[in-house]
């Protein structure tokens, strides 16, 4: 009798132990975000943070690898079957978390919905798609407005696939989105937390985390504190001045990688009454800026100096075409040659958008004054400055562009803007233009042969060295804080937080 009681006791005890151990095996990832105030809707300009959350739920047809090359995701393969027609073969056997199947019809619905609804933030990525045809259940054709060599990278950004039920239940998805991705939202309280759980029926690799708890902590010091106190495992947006502190603390470390956001100068070279209309003065500006020193003094050494506006690892970068070297003597000579008469130039830059942007702007102002230019620094909040630049333009401005994995759209959008049909030109707030640039760009946009495109990129970079319609400064750093419980495969080409790139440390 006693023997049986003992056996029973042991069994109960071992059950208890196993269940406790089982519960303790739940892998939970805690993330501190820089902000919230979003909704899972593609119809309002949200923050990069929030968009990143969405990418884990609504997957795109393709995804960038570490070098910015698109690789298959929801699409298995693709082919350019005619100058204005691409055939995409979709992966089979995938369903959305509400049971609806992922197929060509869902793709067609998503793309059209994103293109046609007003206020869609993805409309610009999809602007060159004219129509989407369902060929069979797992094949779609994209018809583009003329040859579009960059369709696939555009899809990597702008093709989140939604279930067709979204067309009828339009408010459900703001808090409980439905997608094909590895995680689902189980609880979203704005400004408090977003809790994800793994999608048990995910088609791809088994998600490594059972639960992911994302908390917005807007204050940078408080985020660092949360990491140091062990309350979070992953911090988005660690303040540069906290890097040493975090590295010195036990149990945590900082990781810095260059991003795909280039910070550059805009120069109004077509403005008749501005000194910047003379190419010698623009060259002098480039010669006057020491980007290494800039990075060291204003960015704690974390910016990656750039000599072209495109990433070194991606398409479009022309090896051998460097920047104009830092040479204040030459700069002064150029100013004298141009007969610069001391006209004031206003320099617009933000102080709350990019890392240490206010300091960077002031350092640049000093470098320019050092060679004899008369520069008035105009440091503003982005709330004021961006609309101002978009509607009234700028003479000399500093701004960032973060979509370099689409080099054609980036080149067009950053540099050669005209508000024409078919042109992006979205960030050319200084209305810069130069002989032959527009012509080369028009060719670039529809050139399907990458070798020919390389020649165009090289020519554009080379021309910029002389005409200087933009000055590339540096690539912004991505700074994350990590606890020793996790490992992060951060890549420059993906600023968003992908949960499948955060792994438990063995």
């Amino acid at each position, binding site marked *: 009798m006693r023997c049986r009681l003992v056996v029973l006791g042991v069994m109960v005890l071992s059950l208890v132990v196993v269940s406790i151990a089982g519960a303790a095996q739940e892998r939970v990832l805690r993330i501190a975000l820089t902000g919230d*105030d979003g909704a899972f809707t593609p119809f309002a300009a949200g923050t990069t943070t929030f968009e990143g959350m969405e990418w884990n739920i609504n997957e795109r047809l393709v995804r960038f690898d570490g070098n910015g090359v698109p690789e298959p995701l929801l699409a298995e393969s693709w082919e350019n079957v005619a100058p204005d027609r691409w055939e995409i073969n979709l992966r089979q056997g995938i369903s959305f978390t509400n049971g609806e199947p992922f197929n060509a019809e869902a793709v067609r619905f998503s793309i059209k919905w994103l293109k046609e609804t007003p206020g869609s933030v993805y409309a610009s990525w999809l602007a060159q798609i004219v129509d989407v045809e369902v060929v069979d259940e797992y094949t779609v054709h994209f018809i583009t407005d003329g040859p579009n060599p960059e369709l696939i990278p555009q899809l990597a950004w702008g093709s989140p696939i939604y279930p067709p039920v979204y067309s009828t239940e339009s408010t459900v998805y703001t808090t409980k989105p439905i997608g094909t991705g590895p995680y689902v939202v189980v609880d979203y309280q704005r400004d408090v937390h977003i809790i994800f759980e793994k999608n048990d029926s995910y088609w791809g690799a088994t998600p490594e985390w059972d639960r992911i708890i994302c908390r917005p902590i807007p204050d940078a010091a408080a985020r660092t504190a949360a990491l140091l106190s062990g309350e979070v495992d992953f911090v988005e947006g660690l303040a540069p001045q906290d890097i040493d502190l975090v590295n010195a603390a036990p149990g945590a470390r900082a990781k810095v990688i260059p991003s795909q956001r280039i910070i550059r100068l805009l120069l109004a070279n077509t403005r008749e009454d501005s000194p910047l209309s003379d190419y010698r003065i623009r060259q002098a500006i480039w010669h006057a800026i020491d980007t290494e020193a800039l990075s060291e003094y204003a960015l704690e050494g974390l910016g990656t100096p750039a000599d072209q506006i495109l990433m070194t690892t991606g398409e479009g970068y022309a090896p051998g075409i460097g920047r104009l070297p830092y040479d204040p003597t030459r700069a002064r000579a150029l100013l004298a040659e141009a007969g610069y008469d001391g006209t004031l130039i206003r320099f617009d830059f933000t102080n709350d958008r990019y890392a240490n942007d206010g300091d960077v702007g002031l350092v640049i102002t000093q470098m320019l004054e050092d060679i004899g230019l008369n520069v008035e620094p105009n440091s503003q909040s982005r709330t004021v400055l961006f609309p*101002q630049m978009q509607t009234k333009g700028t003479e000399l401005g500093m701004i960032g562009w973060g979509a370099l994995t689409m080099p054609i759209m980036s080149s067009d959008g950053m540099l050669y803007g005209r508000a024409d049909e078919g042109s992006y030109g979205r960030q050319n707030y200084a209305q810069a233009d130069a002989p032959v640039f527009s012509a080369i760009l028009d060719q670039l946009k529809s050139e399907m042969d990458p070798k020919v495109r390389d020649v165009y990129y090289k020519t554009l970079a080379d021309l910029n060295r002389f005409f200087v319609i933009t000055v590339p400064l540096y690539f912004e750093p991505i700074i994350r804080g990590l606890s020793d419980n996790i490992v992060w495969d951060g890549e420059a080409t993906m600023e968003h937080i992908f949960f499948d790139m955060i792994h438990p440390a063995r």
Partner: protein
Amino acid sequence: MGKLVLTRLVQALVVILLLSFAAYTMLFTIADPVALLAGQYSSQEDMDALRESLGLNDPIYVQYGRWLWSALHGQFGQSLYMKEDAMTLIAERLPASFLLVFSTLALSVVVGVSMGVVAAVWYRTWIDRFAVALSVLGISAAPFWVALLAIYIFAVKLRILPSTGYGTLRHLILPTTTLSLMNIATFARLVRDSMIESLTSDYVRTAMAKGIKYRTVVLKHALRNSMIPVITVIAMRFAQLFAFAVVTERIFAWPGSGRLLLNALQRLDYPLVIAYLVVVAGLFVGANLVCDLLYGIIDPRIRTD
């Protein structure tokens, strides 16, 4: 009393009208909200279409009239970024804000008034000097600095409290204490000064001569008279705390309305900003009304009727 309430309601409406009109006209002079909403990568056509769909091409008085008309029907617009009804968004935040504000006021009153009484009773002794010194410290210490220091000590070093967040009692401790410091100091000084005046007055001397216990005199008579200024401050502080605990909310990641306002301002989410101002105006007026009513209860001489 009915007359008082009615007058106040009318005043509230006038205030809200003026405030909303001022806000409407001023917000658009800061910058163009459409440019921010459309984002950096959008084209001129996209921006124009968006502007048209928001009705921003009409003159200001037309837009304001439209807003006023729907406000009278209880519709205060939709947040540009979160695509939800503005008042609903604010209402979501109210519990968190109220919790913080009420806890802060409760703590401040209890601790502050006690400190003030103690300081007044032991007037001019070291207890009093100590209390005064503490209150000076409390008023001078910047809330954000205190907040970060508290987080550092209690969350990072000692690890006994969470650094930020919302949900349990433990999360409430640090934000409440940080916000209370300045208020404790204010109440302590207020009560102390008022009590000292009362305690040296004739009626107190009479009461003591009559043989009433000192403690009763202090607490039942002198303190009651001192509460009038305290109530005034409570009413003012309530609305102020509610509207402007932005810094504390931001640091502690507290999901209150101050944070909502800050984000809305940064993005020029004007429907949300104006709806928020309407709520705050209502709160200020409401707080003042409650304050006046309480005066009447505490001191029958001040019944305004």
